[in-house]
């Protein structure tokens, strides 16, 4: 007979336990700062390139910009009015640094610093070279042609100040190369039925609460539009995705977990016929999640949202422990029994699974490490609770009565506990592994597959981006310096290198911050070359001879040049808050304690260009970064590291199982179905999804944990056939409830949830027959 133990009384125990859970929850709510963006899921030792990429992903202007479309069958002019009204409302909300809908004209005030400094910073031809007599003559003749032409410039005071067209060239250089269609002065889609806007939030991209407020401001502004009833609002962009996916994930997980809880509760109720058991069955998992979260927060200082979501998923194994306890425990006269038979198996299952998860904790990627700690600590505590606290909460007296037909039913289920069968299974596993290992490229490094954004929204984003002519910058050169001036000077000194790339037709073009603002050194050099007032007056007199310009008409021009002599060079700070300054900030950014200048490349997406860019002389200060390639590289590293952890974990688990069960001679019986399940699951995933991504891989870890559980419990040889029947029933019940739960997840439209659900549901569907066939001893009562 199994030894009996005395237990504390039910009421106080439950109260204390619930109180502890409540305290833990309160502490976590207080302490936990959730980071929700995927980019945090990256390695601690990143290269400079990767670091820059992260910086861009997290805080770049692109990450802070919302794409907005107003759609509707509205008179185009009213649509334009709606666009203007929304733009004004967003400006007034104070949440946006810049709202653009195509209607903005450069305000004179905002342009003032650039206008005043145009002879120091403007394009060289009209702003420097045309100041000679011949250049002036050419420019004046051109102005006269324009004045007499079919489309004469309306504001001629500008000609008096700027006869060479320096300012116009300066402004022209600031225009992005591709721009959306316009109608009635605002941006519209190609079919003209959508008005398009861009809104750059003041808040950082990672400040999700502020991003959510910005999106709310857009929605409020839209709702207040006169024509909002006839219009549909579409929002896109990284910030919207971040909070939107948070909302979608919350909605979908709420529904899915509600459905899953209902299904699991129904199953448990059907099996145990007790609402009490169903309720207390949830306690270990809750405890595990809270203790795991606490462990992560204590170790890492904060927890990432995705860690929490994946971690809770990995802890799905903990749902099985209460079932084992409920099936095996006997409670009579305040004594608890029946657990000694499953104790070792439970311990071994927990230890091996925790080891598997803990291998992740050693990972260099912080997100992965957090996941390991969370799942490991959570699972261990859930198991401990199930084993030592749960029995005390059972009703008194308690004994689960196995249906009498069960042992007979089990006997009729075939089991392949024979040498040839095992050899065949072993051969099959080996063959499949070899076949799958031959696959040239099973890993998906496509970031969108790791996305928490539904596919329809990704499609909308791509369409809006194309309409707005805002292609994602993929290839850039960058220059690092200690301050903006140094960065600008370094870019200027590498201009021969850049021009060489263009001249050799390797790249079609490039953009640089020095085109917006030359370095102070260059500005001073240009200043010293400017003609004096007298010189310029003489040149003008010669140039104007024979042309109908009034004497003294160009006095403002002479005055401006006088000013240019006395000016101190323009700095990025002088341009802050102006349209030109904003454009400069996209290319010249603080970068840790240093500054970085970005040189986006145009038409460089071909092998010859990439080879040339990669082999740039480091002495030039130019460094090449391919954003797509770098992000793909990051994901590759992530997958490789997960694989390394998994290999380590698998070896560790193998050793532990061998140590745990070698005396019973069931090592192979335990390990074989686990290996077969994993290999088949992996192969099926590859066939269904085309490639294995990170979330598939992490879910395979869960499948490992579950199949270890099933295999250990089923492979026991029990003296009592009823005991075997109980074990088999517990495994089948756990597997069925997990299968339903993850099957529901597989229906989700969110790629991440779908990947987790599909992998795990497939895995359970494979593990259950595999363990029943391969792990069970042939005749349960043989050793009796």
């Amino acid at each position, binding site marked *: 007979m199994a030894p009996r133990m005395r237990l504390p009384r039910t009421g106080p125990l439950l109260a204390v336990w619930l109180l502890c859970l409540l305290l833990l929850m309160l502490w976590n709510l207080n302490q936990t700062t959730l980071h929700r963006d995927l980019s945090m899921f990256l390695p601690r030792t990143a290269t400079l390139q990767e670091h820059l990429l992260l910086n861009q992903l997290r805080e770049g202007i692109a990450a802070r910009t919302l794409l907005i479309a107003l759609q509707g069958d509205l008179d185009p*002019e009213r649509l334009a009015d709606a666009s203007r009204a929304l733009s004004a409302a967003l400006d007034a909300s104070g949440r946006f640094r810049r709202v653009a809908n*195509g*209607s903005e*004209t450069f*305000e004179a005030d905002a342009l003032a610093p650039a206008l005043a400094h145009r002879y120091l910073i403007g394009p060289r031809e009209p702003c420097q070279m045309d100041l000679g007599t011949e250049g002036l003559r050419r420019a004046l003749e051109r102005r*006269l*042609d324009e*004045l*007499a*032409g*079919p*489309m*004469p*410039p*309306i*504001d*001629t*005071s500008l*000609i*008096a100040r700027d006869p060479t067209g320096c300012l116009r060239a300066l402004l022209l250089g600031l225009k992005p190369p591709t*721009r959306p*269609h*316009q*109608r*009635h*002065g*605002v941006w519209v889609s190609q079919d003209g039925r959508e008005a398009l806007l861009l809104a750059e939030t003041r808040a950082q991209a990672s400040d999700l609460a502020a991003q959510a407020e910005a999106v709310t401001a857009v929605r409020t502004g839209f709702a207040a539009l006169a024509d909002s009833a006839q219009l549909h609002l579409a929002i896109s962009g990284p910030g919207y995705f971040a909070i939107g996916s948070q909302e979608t994930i919350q909605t979908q997980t709420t529904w899915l977990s509600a459905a899953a809880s209902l299904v699991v509760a129904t199953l448990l109720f059907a099996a145990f016929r007790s609402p009490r058991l169903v309720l207390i069955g949830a306690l270990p998992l809750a405890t595990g999640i809270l203790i795991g979260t606490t462990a992560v927060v204590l170790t890492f200082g904060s927890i990432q949202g995705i860690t929490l979501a994946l971690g809770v998923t990995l802890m799905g194994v903990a749902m099985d422990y209460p079932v084992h306890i409920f099936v095996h425990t006997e409670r009579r006269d305040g004594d608890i029994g029946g657990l000694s038979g499953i104790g070792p198996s439970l311990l071994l299952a927990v230890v091996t699974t925790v080891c598997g998860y803990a291998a992740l904790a050693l990972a260099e990627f912080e997100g992965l490490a957090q996941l390991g700690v969370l799942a490991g600590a959570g699972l261990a505590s859930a198991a401990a609770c199930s084993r030592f606290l749960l029995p005390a909460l059972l009703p008194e007296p308690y004994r689960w009565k196995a249906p009498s037909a069960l042992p007979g039913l089990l006997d009729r289920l075939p089991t392949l506990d024979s040498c040839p069968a095992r050899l065949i299974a072993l051969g099959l596993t080996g063959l499949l592994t070899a076949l799958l290992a031959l696959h040239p490229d099973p890993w998906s490094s496509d970031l969108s597959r790791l996305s928490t954004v539904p596919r329809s929204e990704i499609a909308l984003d791509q369409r809006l981006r194309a309409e707005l002519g805002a292609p994602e910058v993929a290839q850039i050169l960058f220059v690092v310096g200690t301050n903006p001036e140094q960065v600008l000077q370094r870019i200027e000194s590498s201009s021969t290198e850049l021009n060489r790339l263009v001249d050799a037709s390797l790249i079609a073009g490039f953009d640089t911050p020095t085109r917006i603002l030359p370095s102070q050194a260059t500005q001073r050099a240009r200043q010293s070359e400017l003609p004096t007032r007298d010189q310029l007056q003489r040149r003008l007199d010669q140039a104007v001879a024979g042309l*109908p*310009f*009034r*004497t003294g*008409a160009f006095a403002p021009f002479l005055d401006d040049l006088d000013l240019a002599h006395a000016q101190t060079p323009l700095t990025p700070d002088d341009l802050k808050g102006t349209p030109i300054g904003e454009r400069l900030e996209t290319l010249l950014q603080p970068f840790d304690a240093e500054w970085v200048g970005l040189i986006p490349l145009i038409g460089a997406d071909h092998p010859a260009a990439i080879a040339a860019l990669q082999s740039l002389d480091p002495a030039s200060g130019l460094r090449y970064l391919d954003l797509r390639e770098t992000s793909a590289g990051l994901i590759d590293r992530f997958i490789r590291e997960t694989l390394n952890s998994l290999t380590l974990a698998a070896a560790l688990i193998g050793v532990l199982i061998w140590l745990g069960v070698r005396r019973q001679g069931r090592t192979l019986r335990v390990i074989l179905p686990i290996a077969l399940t994993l290999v088949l699951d992996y192969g099926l995933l590859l066939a269904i999804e085309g490639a294995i991504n990170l979330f598939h891989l992490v879910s395979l870890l869960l499948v490992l944990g579950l199949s270890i559980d099933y295999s250990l419990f089923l492979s026991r040889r029990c003296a009592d056939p009823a005991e075997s029947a109980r074990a088999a029933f517990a495994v089948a019940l756990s597997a069925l409830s997990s299968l339903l739960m993850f099957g529901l997840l597989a229906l989700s439209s969110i790629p991440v949830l779908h990947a987790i659900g599909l992998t795990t549901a497939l895995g359970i569907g494979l593990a259950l027959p595999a363990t029943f066939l391969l792990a069970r001893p042939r005749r349960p009562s043989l050793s009796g």
Partner: protein
Amino acid sequence: MAAIGLLLCTADPIAAPIDLETRMRSLAQVTQVEAEYRETVELSLLDQPLESRGHLRYQAPDHLSKTSDRGDAVHIDGDRVEVIEGDSKAQFMISDQAALASVVLALRATFAGNLDRLRRHFELDYQPRTDSWTLALTPRERGIGNIVQTIRITGVENRIDRLEIVEGNGDRRSMRLSNQRLLACSGPDKDCRSTQ
């Protein structure tokens, strides 16, 4: 295609001044205008006025083109402007040049008889007389008003004869239209009849 030159002389015997709404409706009936233009530009920059001549064409709802006798041309279609000077072609969006956009809008909306649009962008002062009418437009937007002070359009019945622009810096431009052919068409170059 039979563009029957039906001269419709609808001189009103009572000759009461027609209100702006009616005037605009009569302008709206004309969907195509071809005319010779003579443009005079008096600029503070220059000590003599610049003169140019050419051909102007309007096609409802929003096409406007000017071809000068020297061969330079500008075509405005919706928001798109194409300027052809000698061998060079340049394209830009009219909304890029607010002051110009305002002038073009005034001319196109008057041709089109689009009173709503005119009211949206300008203060209107309409002066009907027995034999002609004058519509003075003052931009509502202050930024534009600093550059384009007033646009004065003078016409006879459903015909625009003269466009004058007075600018903030004292510059003046005027454009006279002559030898006009006004057509009311049910479609572009379809079922047209003269409406003069």
